[in-house]
């Protein structure tokens, strides 16, 4: 399986990443991609800072991707997550999965999203007119893991 894990401060081009991913899927019949953007929260948010734990972040994402590959017959898997300062509307992260059939690709993409939300060491801080606040983890994010 092609496994591409990237943690970076730089922006990325979602369209170009999707095309490049689809081009190296080794005969898969289905590709699923997901893009996460910074919400503007009704114009209240001016920027978001994403902090992470260099070293552990990469190994945690790699482990999550490895688990997905163990559960679904994936031919390729991409996880790209940014850190640093981001503005509303900017891409935060993307995942892409490729498999022979769409169900596996969809499920694996959801699995990757559910796990990286609460098992990859990222923390978000929102800055707005009302000041700054760390984004709290949601109970439903933790609960989402129980379905796998």
């Amino acid at each position, binding site marked *: 399986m092609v496994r591409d894990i990237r943690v970076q401060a730089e922006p990325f081009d979602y369209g170009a990443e999707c095309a490049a991913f689809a081009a190296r899927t080794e005969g898969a019949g289905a590709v699923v991609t997901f893009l*996460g953007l910074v919400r503007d929260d009704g114009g209240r948010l001016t920027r978001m800072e994403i*902090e992470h*734990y260099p*070293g*552990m972040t990469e*190994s945690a994402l790699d482990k999550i991707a490895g688990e997905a590959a163990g559960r679904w017959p994936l031919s390729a898997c991409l996880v790209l*997550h940014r850190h640093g300062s981001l503005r509303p509307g900017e891409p*935060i*992260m993307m995942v892409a999965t490729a498999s022979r059939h769409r169900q596996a690709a969809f499920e694996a993409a959801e699995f990757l*999203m559910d796990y*990286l*939300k*609460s*098992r*990859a*060491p*990222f*923390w*978000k*801080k929102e800055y707005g007119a009302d000041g700054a606040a*760390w*984004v*709290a*983890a949601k109970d439903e*994010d*933790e609960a989402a893991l129980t379905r796998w």
Partner: protein
Amino acid sequence: MIDLLYFAWVRERIGLPRERVETRAETVMDLIEELKAREDRYQAAFADLRALRVAVDQELADFTAPLSGVREVAFFPPMTGG
């Protein structure tokens, strides 16, 4: 010697991103008690353990995890990736 790393509001409450400590603590919990006894800012950071997560040598761990042979311990709030 163990490297301690702090992230997000844990880092802000303690006032530094990392430090190296000499400790005889046998578990993560013992280490937390040692730190809390040091200064108020640690007391503030470790006041509610339900709001904290810990990684030992870059793997998520429990507060009961032993520290023998460990090089790095990180404290942080629940993660909010994605």
